[in-house]
Structure formats: structure tokens, C-alpha cells
């Protein structure tokens, strides 16, 4: 699953904000496929032409672009990757109009996230009924709820939500992050290891508290 970025006009200031975010978590996008949603950008915006180049210049690999009209064809000079719709590439043919089903706000997973697996839901909360293994990761636009042990990575609020939280029944994480701020295993308080905790952001600080 890919992360979705949603640029808003004016593009210059949007990219400036992105740069700030990336300065706080420099490796956040490394090796991670990204989808760009252009819903909010006017189709006649001259800036669209440089969109793909801006991302490439930041070493962000764009997997696809979504949010365009079904019959929209980007000029070849823009260098856009394939257009996507609902996770699948679309051609430029007419698509019959249909009311889209309401999008879910949360993702529920009924089993462990095993080492090497990645669960990602940029649109909202993720709930895991089970544990997140060492070498596994959960990424959420909103909060992350883990009913078992967190031994891998939990990355909450990826779309810039400073109110996002992480809850788990047993803290043994390799990395936790909220809204781009992160702590690795070495920075976790010794006294809360193995304990049920809630993790939130207070300004620029990650706060880890026992959950009783």
C-alpha cells in the first residue's frame, strides 16, 4: 500500500511545508511508494507541469497520480506516472458515472502483523487485533490501536495530524512516530517497557504514558 500526498494550491507554499516536514523526518519517504492526489489542483494551473519534477527532486518516488477526471490526459512533457483510480490504473476511456460508496474512516485487522509486513491506511485510524512483530510496520493517517504487543514500528498521523495517538497493550517498539516526530527503541523509557501505554504529541515532544 502506498502513502497518498494531497497538494493544495498555491503549490509553492505547499512544497515549502513539505520540506519542513521532511527536515524533521528525513528518511520518511525513503523507499516508500507515494501516490499524489491532484483533486485540489486546477487543471489549468501552470504549476502542474512541474509537479512530477518537484517530487523527483525531493527523492520521493511517485507510484501514480489520482484525482483526475476520467478523460483527462496529461501532456507527455509533464512526465507523469500512470493515472490511478481506486488503486488501479485507469485508461483515458469514459467511465460511467456512479455514486461512490462512502469511504471507510478506519481499517481493522483481525490478525497479527508479521515481520516484513506493512499495514498502511493514510485516510484514518488503524486497529490491530493482535501484535505487530519486530520488523513489521503500521502506518496510519490517524491513530493506531494495537490490542497486542507492539514490537515493530507504529507511525501515526502521517498526513500531518498532530492529534493522532498510538495505543498498545505491550510496548516493545522499534520505532514510534506521530506527525513526523519519532522515537526509536533506545529512547523509550525503561520503566514503560512491556507495559500498556498511550503515546501522544505535546507540541514538539512525544509523550508516553502508562495506560491503566
Amino acid at each position, binding site marked *: 500500500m502506498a502513502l497518498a500526498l494531497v497538494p493544495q494550491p498555491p503549490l509553492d507554499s505547499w512544497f515549502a511545508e513539505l520540506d519542513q516536514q521532511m527536515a524533521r523526518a528525513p528518511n520518511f519517504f525513503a523507499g516508500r511508494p507515494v501516490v499524489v492526489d491532484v483533486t485540489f489542483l486546477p487543471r489549468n494551473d501552470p504549476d502542474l507541469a512541474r509537479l512530477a519534477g518537484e517530487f523527483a527532486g525531493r527523492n520521493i518516488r511517485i507510484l501514480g497520480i489520482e484525482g483526475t477526471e476520467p478523460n483527462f490526459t496529461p501532456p507527455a512533457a509533464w512526465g507523469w506516472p500512470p493515472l490511478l483510480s481506486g488503486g488501479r490504473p485507469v485508461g483515458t476511456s469514459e467511465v460511467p458515472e456512479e455514486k461512490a460508496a462512502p469511504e471507510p474512516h478506519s481499517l481493522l485487522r483481525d*490478525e*497479527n502483523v*508479521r*515481520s*516484513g*509486513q506493512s499495514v498502511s491506511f493514510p485516510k484514518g485510524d488503524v486497529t490491530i487485533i*493482535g*501484535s505487530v*512483530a*519486530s*520488523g*513489521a510496520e503500521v502506518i496510519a493517517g490517524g491513530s493506531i490501536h494495537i490490542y497486542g*504487543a507492539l*514490537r515493530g514500528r507504529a507511525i501515526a498521523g502521517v498526513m500531518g495530524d498532530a492529534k493522532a495517538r498510538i495505543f498498545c497493550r505491550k510496548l516493545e517498539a522499534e520505532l514510534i512516530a506521530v506527525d513526523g516526530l519519532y522515537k526509536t527503541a533506545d529512547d523509550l523509557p525503561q520503566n514503560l517497557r512491556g507495559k500498556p501505554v498511550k503515546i501522544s504529541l505535546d507540541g514538539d515532544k512525544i509523550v508516553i504514558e502508562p495506560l491503566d
Partner: protein
Amino acid sequence: MSKVLVVTSGKGGVGKTTSTASLGAALAAAGQKVVVVDFDVGLRNLDLVMGAERRVVYDLINVVNGDAKLAQALIRDKRNDNLSLLAASQTRDKDALNLEGVTKVIEQLREKFDWVLCDSPAGIEKGALLAMYHADLAVVVTNPEVSSVRDSDRIIGMLDSKTAKAERGEKMEKVLLLTRYDQARAARGEMLKVEDVLEILSIPLLGIVPESQEVLRASNLGAPVVMSSPNCAPSRAYADAVRRLQGETVPMNIPVDRTGLFAKFLNWRVS
């Protein structure tokens, strides 16, 4: 109904081949018709552990490529008629295997045998994926140490997503075989505890096989340990595991060799 079982681990050297040979021999001793299949193309070992290395003429790749008939490649064990071996090729690499060919071979083996035991190569690449693809049941071999447990966890994820069963939307049955368990090191706290491994992997326990010199001795003799030394601790662990595989309920304990003065106090039970 025949059962295809994969013996897999992710990490290398944890005891897959040793376990395949002994589970196979113990099932055969219980009267089941068994074939053990070596998927470790390029690094074949199972023929050595079974003591059949000088009898290999045709191998799995030959059958997959249609160069030999299955019947020509199957090597029947000299000690037990119920047990056969399908060896891997030592001179080829894993790219010589393909899903279509493997599918045909497994179908044919299902017709001839009650149990098809596939000895997986280490790693998470093609060879390991092909070994697990047709399995009905997976024996996940793990040593009580962090890296082995993590690799096993990774393999469990693949068993749940990259197998024929998973593609059909069915649940793959998985059991844990904890091997090379060293009682003395466990007592000193140098290894992960059984409970901790079970908590992390959260799959049912098939058995605990202790570390023992007998295993190395057996492979030097070219016999599965359950054949060369049926009463030693690892052999009893494998025999119990096989009874569990056949649906019996056997109390779980860690077998020990009763040689030392205090040995009889050391029959630890796992809660």
C-alpha cells in the same frame, strides 16, 4: 487423504533437514506411507541425512523437466519400506524449478503417499516459496533465539499470503517445532524462554527438540536420529511430535537424556 507438509524456517541451519528426516521416519514407523522431498536445490542435504547419497540417480529437477519419471527418481529407504526420498539436484540452482512442474510432481506424490514432507531451503526466495506453495500444513522450525524467531514470523506471514491455500482464501495450518533447545543455556537465561517464543509467534506448539550430540552422530551415520538412536531425547521429541501430527493429544515436555545424577528432576513441563 494425503497431506502435504512443508518444513520451513526462514533462517538457515535451524534444523529443517534434520526434522524433515526424523518426522518422515517416525511417520513411516507408525505405518504411514511417506515421501520426503528435498527442495534445497543446489545445496541438497536430505539425501545425506537419510544415508541415500550414493543411490541418487534422478532428482526433483529431472522429474520437473520431464527427463525422468517420478517412479525412477523415488528412492526407497532400505530400513523402512514405507519411507521414500525425492532428492534435489546438487548441480543446478533454484531457478531450475518452476511452479507448473512442482505442481505436477506434488499431485503425483499425493496419489502415492499418505504424507508428502517438503524440506524447504532457507530464505524467503523462490525455492522457499515453491516448497510451501502446495502445503496443507506447515511445520515452522525455530531455535530459541531472537533472529530465528523473527525470521519464523516473517515466514508465517508468507504462509498466510503466498501459498495456494492463502490464494483460495483458506487458512494455512501452522505449528511450531522448537529445536536445538539447550536446557543448560535456558537455565542460565541465555536463550529465549519457550513461553516468549510462543507469545511472539502465536501458533500451536508441535514439540520441543533438545540440543543433543546424537543428532550430529546420526547424520554422520547417514540415518535420521529416530532410526539410529530411537531412545535419545531428540528422538523421543520427534516421536511425540508425530503422534501430535496424527491427532493424538500428548502432554508437552522437554525430553532429556537420563544420564546425569539429577536428570530425573529435569523433565520440565511447559505450562
